[in-house]
């Protein structure tokens, strides 16, 4: 089956080399021909690169076993491969969606596509990292390209402001990650997740064997109280929560999502959340599992705070992008509840919710990007809610799709968002977190308000004049229609999502035993 084990990393190596080639190609053509606008062709080339990457990755797919390569710093298992394929397919859709947006907004740099490819390279390395150093370097690669993508619209002060805020807070959170991992290295002598799992997974169960080792205070203190390890783990945890925009670390995400060009926001909202959650699962479910049991309640407090913030603060938003930003914050709160349960079903629901979040986010943001005003403010990108008024009269089907996907995000039947949300509440009830479930259900109801308000503005607004929108090209509308029907179909038959998440969770927990 394999020539040598390291061939499993061939897709990433291909991506890296093709990025370098794309940079050289773009630079030579554009500089020698007086800055020719090659943005579209480079974008299509990068779509080709990612689809070839997908092809190589599907070729490499393994089913049941996992193995570690490159001195145990990179792990190849089903979770990593599946999430990489999903992220690659989602990013192909992203590329196709943003092409028209970039042309209208006159973002003429071909480096935009190259930056997205760099970010994807970093994300793919996060998905398969087995080592704190690899994870840090991959997070840095992804974050650095996101900082530049956020600041790329040079004539808008909001964009530069968003890039600067994102850069400072992202660098701060990366430094927290580094601090935590350096203390972990100082205590345990290794940065490998596998070695940390062998040392710390069965911490509380190993209480008996160290009871008579009274001379070795180091062992006793680390393995029983684990003060310094919890200290270090809290830093790593906070740093990853920063990247996910969980409250109270969410303040940067509103300004960044609002100010960046919408194509960048599309990327920020949809793609990296899965990768960071995979990293969280690898650290806290597989290496330091018992410690999670110790401070599970603090994670739950953060999750509830996130949901409350996301629900209540979204009520008074008047711009569509801020609204979608707050809704993504609250979604991360629900995911964190599933993360904190610590059970098998909790992990499965976590992956279900994340997959569905990505698909629904893809749908919502594509529709958002496709809405372009026809007259007067052709370039206006930050849509107020009032811009959507009477969308039902000008583009009936689009309004219908938009409202249906919004209701799916809100968690109303008959869309699949209802099923995954109820799954989250079921797993939290299963571990007797009743208060958490009640509070989050109530906040979910409150957040439904601002989704329904958009529906009301689109359909039932009593204004005499609405804004006219450009018609949507047919190849893009096919994508949106397919996603919409996919969401409806998944309600009737959600086996697809449940099957994949069950398989992932099974293969992940199988290696723990």
């Amino acid at each position, binding site marked *: 089956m394999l020539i040598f084990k390291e061939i499993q*990393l061939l897709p990433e190596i291909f991506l*890296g080399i093709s*990025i*370098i080639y794309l*940079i050289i190609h773009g630079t030579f053509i*554009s500089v020698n021909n*007086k*800055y020719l606008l090659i943005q579209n062709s480079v974008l299509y080339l990068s779509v080709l690169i990612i689809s070839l990457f997908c092809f190589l990755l599907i070729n490499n797919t393994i089913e049941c076993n996992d193995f570690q390569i*490159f*001195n145990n*710093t*990179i792990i190849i298992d089903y979770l990593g491969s599946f999430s990489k394929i999903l992220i690659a397919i989602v990013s192909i859709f992203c590329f196709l969606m943003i092409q028209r947006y970039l042309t209208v907004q006159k973002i003429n*740099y071909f*480096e935009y596509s*190259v*930056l997205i490819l*760099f970010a994807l*390279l970093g994300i793919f*390395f996060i998905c398969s990292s087995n080592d704190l*150093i*690899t994870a840090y*370097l*991959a997070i*840095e*690669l992804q974050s*650095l*390209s996101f*900082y*530049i993508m956020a*600041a*790329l619209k*040079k004539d808008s002060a909001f964009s530069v402001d968003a890039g600067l805020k994102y850069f400072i807070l992202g660098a701060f959170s990366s430094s927290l990650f580094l601090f935590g991992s350096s203390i972990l290295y100082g*205590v345990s002598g290794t940065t490998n997740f596998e070695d940390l799992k062998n040392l710390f997974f069965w911490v509380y169960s190993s209480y008996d064997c160290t009871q008579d080792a009274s*001379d*070795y*205070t*180091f062992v006793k*203190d*680390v393995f029983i109280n684990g*003060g*310094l390890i919890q*200290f270090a783990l809290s830093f790593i945890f906070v740093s990853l929560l920063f990247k996910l925009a969980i409250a109270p670390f969410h303040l940067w995400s509103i300004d960044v999502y609002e100010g960046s060009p919408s194509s960048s926001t599309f990327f920020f909202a949809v793609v990296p959340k899965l990768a960071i959650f995979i990293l969280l699962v690898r650290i806290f479910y597989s290496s330091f599992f018992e410690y999670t049991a110790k401070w599970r309640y603090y994670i739950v407090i953060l999750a509830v705070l996130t949901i409350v913030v996301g629900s209540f603060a979204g009520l008074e938003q008047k711009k569509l992008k801020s609204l979608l930003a707050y809704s993504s914050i609250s979604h991360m709160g629900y995911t964190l509840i599933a993360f904190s349960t610590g059970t098998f079903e909790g992990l499965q629901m976590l992956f279900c919710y994340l997959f569905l979040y990505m698909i629904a986010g893809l749908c919502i943001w594509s529709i958002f990007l496709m809405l372009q005003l026809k007259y007067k403010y052709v370039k206006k990108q930050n849509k107020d809610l009032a811009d959507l008024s009477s969308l039902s009269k000008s583009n009936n089907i689009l309004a219908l799709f938009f409202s249906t996907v919004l209701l799916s995000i809100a968690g109303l039947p008959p869309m699949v968002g209802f099923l995954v949300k109820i799954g989250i509440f079921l797993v939290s009830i299963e571990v007797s977190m009743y208060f958490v479930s009640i509070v989050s259900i109530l906040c979910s109801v409150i957040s439904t308000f601002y989704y329904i308000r958009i529906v009301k503005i689109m359909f039932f607004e009593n204004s005499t004049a609405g804004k006219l929108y450009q018609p949507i090209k047919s190849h893009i509308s096919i994508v949106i229609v397919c996603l919409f029907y996919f969401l409806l179909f998944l309600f009737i038959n959600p086996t697809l999502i449940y099957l994949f998440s069950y398989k992932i969770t099974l293969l992940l927990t199988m290696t723990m035993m």
Partner: protein
Amino acid sequence: MIVNLFFYFFSFVLITSSLMTVFSQNSIYSVLFLVLSFVSSSSILFLLECEYVSLIFIIIYVGAIAVLFLFVVMMLDIKTISLVKDSLKYFPFGSFIGIAFLIEILLVVPSTFEAINPYNISFLCNFHLDWFNKLDYFTEIMSVGHLLYTDYLIQFLLSGNILLLATIGPVTLVLIRSIKTTKKQITFKQLSRTYNSVLYI
């Protein structure tokens, strides 16, 4: 003994200069204190026999990054604001968080590393000599090289990619791509003019 004295001295300089970086009102003083803290941390690394990492600190942090900071700070028109009247507003809450962290570190760190070294118990410390280390040892550069290009190859390539992105990104953000170029001379043509081809009226 002498090594301990050096360590105390450099640590004192490091802590003092990093505090002064935060507290000094003039921005240039902050950057210069930052340079001093880099140099003192590099000296501490020298004491730990990591001379390669220490000199790389100086070459890269002090020689490139802090120069960049210094350039930017010098060219911005930063007025030296007096922070005294604003700092008291945040003093209770900020000091509470800071003292909580400090107490937590001070409680946790010493108790974790209380290992008992059997070779250091008695007052007449009879330590054993590692003879093999004196015969054949790896210098620090050799050990870094042995690990970096074999075991941690992918990490090395990843950091190379990060540096590539860091060179492309600012160029993308800043480069003004204009079609009409400025006029330049071609010095070779200027210097190779001969007497015969000069026109005089």
